[in-house]
């Protein structure tokens, strides 16, 4: 009997030790992510996302930072140094909506972030949400937009009174970078084809350069199918049959228009996730809707956009299991239609919606 007791104790000790080791192992897997709540409804939806991640037991630790622009030495506007340092250290960020005050003197906050971290690619996956009906079903595409140059370089001149010139800048380096990223993304996410969107029949040299770089990247990634299509043809076909598109890569302006078009297909900016990829491995995931100051603080906001961006972030970090769990819970709650926020057609509060998702996440475990 004593020997039995001894072997039993040994087994218990071994189990407890291995559990400790496992705990330590997974504890070292907890990753820190910089969280930028933002303005308006930002703090509410950020809290909602943190709650849901907590319920899902995702190994994420949040570090909250504020990015209101401050004027650095020399009068140049920049984001606070602690925010920059946190982002550089953690490499991954989640951002809520930021407001740009009109007469503040500093450029838009999004522009500042983009320049600080060289966020060159904006990725927006648009997938139809089963519970949220739009005239378009079965949408499943990704728009990858070059985010640093193109028509939005901000270089404008008044040549003579009444004649204005805006410069659209296309560089070889930026085009190559975005084309490479598009094919890498397609490969990593098992997407079958990449389509380059351009207007090279009119803008021969600029879009021609972009197209050449896309073709070169296609040569290096023969496993992904490559097609090219004019912007107007893409628009025409997109509103008739969006299922024919997979990954779209394009310069800045076309990307802006098309990504918002695709967001409109699945239900608007309130349910669309978005991610910005920068140089040096930095990635900031954000919700693209506005700050909605009219409903701020009233517990009426819809956290879906930020939540789906956070799910995109989990996938980027390789935590596919947790990502799938949270995403499934979110879609299930929307499909059930029992607890929905006002913009989705219901009249529940943000906190009720969040609790429902948390409960579903725990049930899925």
């Amino acid at each position, binding site marked *: 009997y004593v020997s039995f007791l001894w072997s039993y104790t040994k087994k218990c000790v071994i189990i407890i030790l291995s559990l400790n080791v496992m705990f330590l192992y997974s504890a070292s897997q907890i990753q820190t992510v910089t969280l930028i709540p933002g303005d308006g409804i930002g703090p509410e939806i950020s809290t909602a996302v943190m709650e849901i991640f907590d319920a899902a037991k995702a190994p994420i630790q949040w570090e909250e930072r504020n990015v209101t622009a401050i004027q650095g030495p020399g009068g140049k506007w920049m984001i606070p140094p602690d925010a920059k340092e946190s982002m550089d250290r953690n490499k991954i960020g989640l951002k809520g909506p930021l407001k740009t005050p009109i007469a503040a003197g500093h450029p838009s906050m999004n522009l500042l972030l983009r320049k600080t971290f060289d966020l060159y690619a904006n990725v927006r996956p648009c997938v139809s949400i089963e519970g949220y009906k739009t005239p378009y079903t079965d949408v499943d595409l990704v728009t990858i937009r070059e985010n640093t140059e193109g028509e939005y370089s901000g270089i404008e001149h008044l040549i003579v009174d009444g004649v*204005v010139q*805006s410069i659209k800048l296309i560089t070889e380096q930026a085009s190559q970078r975005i084309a490479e990223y598009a094919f890498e993304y397609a490969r990593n996410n098992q997407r079958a084809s990449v389509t380059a969107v351009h207007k090279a029949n*009119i803008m021969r040299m600029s879009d021609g*350069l972009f197209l050449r770089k896309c073709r070169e990247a296609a040569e290096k990634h023969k496993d992904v199918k490559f097609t090219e299509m004019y912007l107007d043809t893409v*628009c025409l076909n997109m509103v008739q049959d969006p299922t024919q598109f997979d990954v779209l890569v394009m310069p800045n302006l076309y990307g802006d228009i098309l990504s918002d078009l695709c967001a409109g297909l699945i239900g608007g900016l309130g349910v669309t996730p978005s991610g910005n990829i920068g140089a040096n491995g930095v990635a900031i995931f954000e919700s693209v809707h506005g700050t909605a100051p009219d409903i701020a603080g009233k517990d009426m906001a819809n956290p879906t956009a930020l939540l789906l961006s956070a799910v995109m972030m989990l996938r980027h970090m390789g935590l596919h299991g947790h990502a799938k769990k949270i995403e499934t819970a979110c879609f299930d709650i929307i499909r059930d239609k029992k607890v929905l926020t006002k913009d989705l057609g219901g009249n529940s509060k943000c906190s009720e919606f969040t609790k429902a998702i948390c409960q579903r996440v725990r049930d899925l475990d």
Partner: protein
Amino acid sequence: MINYIYIYIYNTLVTTYRLISMQLITYEMLMLQPPPAKYGGRHTVTLIPGDGIGPELLNHVKEVFRFSCVPVDFEVVHVNSALESEDDINNAITAIRRNGVALKGNIETNHTMAPSVKSRNNLLRTSLDLYANVMHCQSLPGVQTRHKNIDIMIIRENTEGEYSSLEHESVSGVVECLKIITRNNSLRIADYAFRLAREKGRSRVTAVHKANIMKLGDGLFLQCCREVASGYPDITFDSMIVDNTTMQLVSKPQQFDVMVMPNLYGNVVSNVCAGLVGGPGLVPGANYGRDYAVFETATRNTGKSIAGRNIANPTAMLLAGCMMLDHLRLYDYASMIRNAILTTMNETRLHTADIGGQGTTSEVVQSIMRNIQSKGPLTTDL
């Protein structure tokens, strides 16, 4: 006594009639005057077949016009897009200058050729200063679409903006493309938009722009629109940023009435609207200048993949032909052909493949001609 009263009434009536007719004459002079008919009431119109499905569709237009005894003769000018020299397109431009009106298919731009070879269509538009591209998107009851009750007029600046074709490579690997916005052209297109809105009895004009990013360029365009809007107090004017516009178009297109915008946004928005009402085969487009007018399909597709297979939709090109007849003041012929087309589309429901049917182009054209014969006054043999 009674005689004096009669004379007085008669004089008043005559003066009123004269005043009204003078106003009408001045009003008509403000609008574009079509060229007078030459040679015994028959107009001559330049026809540019273009590439892809252009030649076959324009042949069908000629067939329908000949069948309906429309007093229009076509002067065909071919433009070879494979050549680098611009002689062909210059001949076409001269022909249009001579005749004043043209009907054209889209000329392909091969972008593997050198960048100095510019788009022929663009060259035509800028040389003739066809500053307004007008497109009317209407939901047709016979066509299945996701959105119903769409009725949008799109007026797009056609000569400048991003299509100025001014590009240079200052440093190797860095290309600059210039987008030019001028005050004169913006005022001109805004004025055209408001005049058209008033003429058609529309209540709202929306300017589409991206002035939050391109502050000087689109800011100037928006300012010009606002200036012109102040002269038309009966028409509501508002503005919308282009990405929000596309989002609204795919969710609630019924909110838009008349839209005016610079060149590139016009390209995007017109293609989105054409897609919403059923596709590129249904909507005609017109390019108006001060002295010339050129009619074509609204989305300007060459349709290379469906060329020569008898499956293209002839509706857009035929409706463009009707717009041309309206422009030439041959209203009766225009409405006769248009009614026949709409009857085929909505009642007989003979559709081509692009709108979900199985008819061929020739079947649709035959059906249209049968409709014309049954309702029209005089036709040749089928």
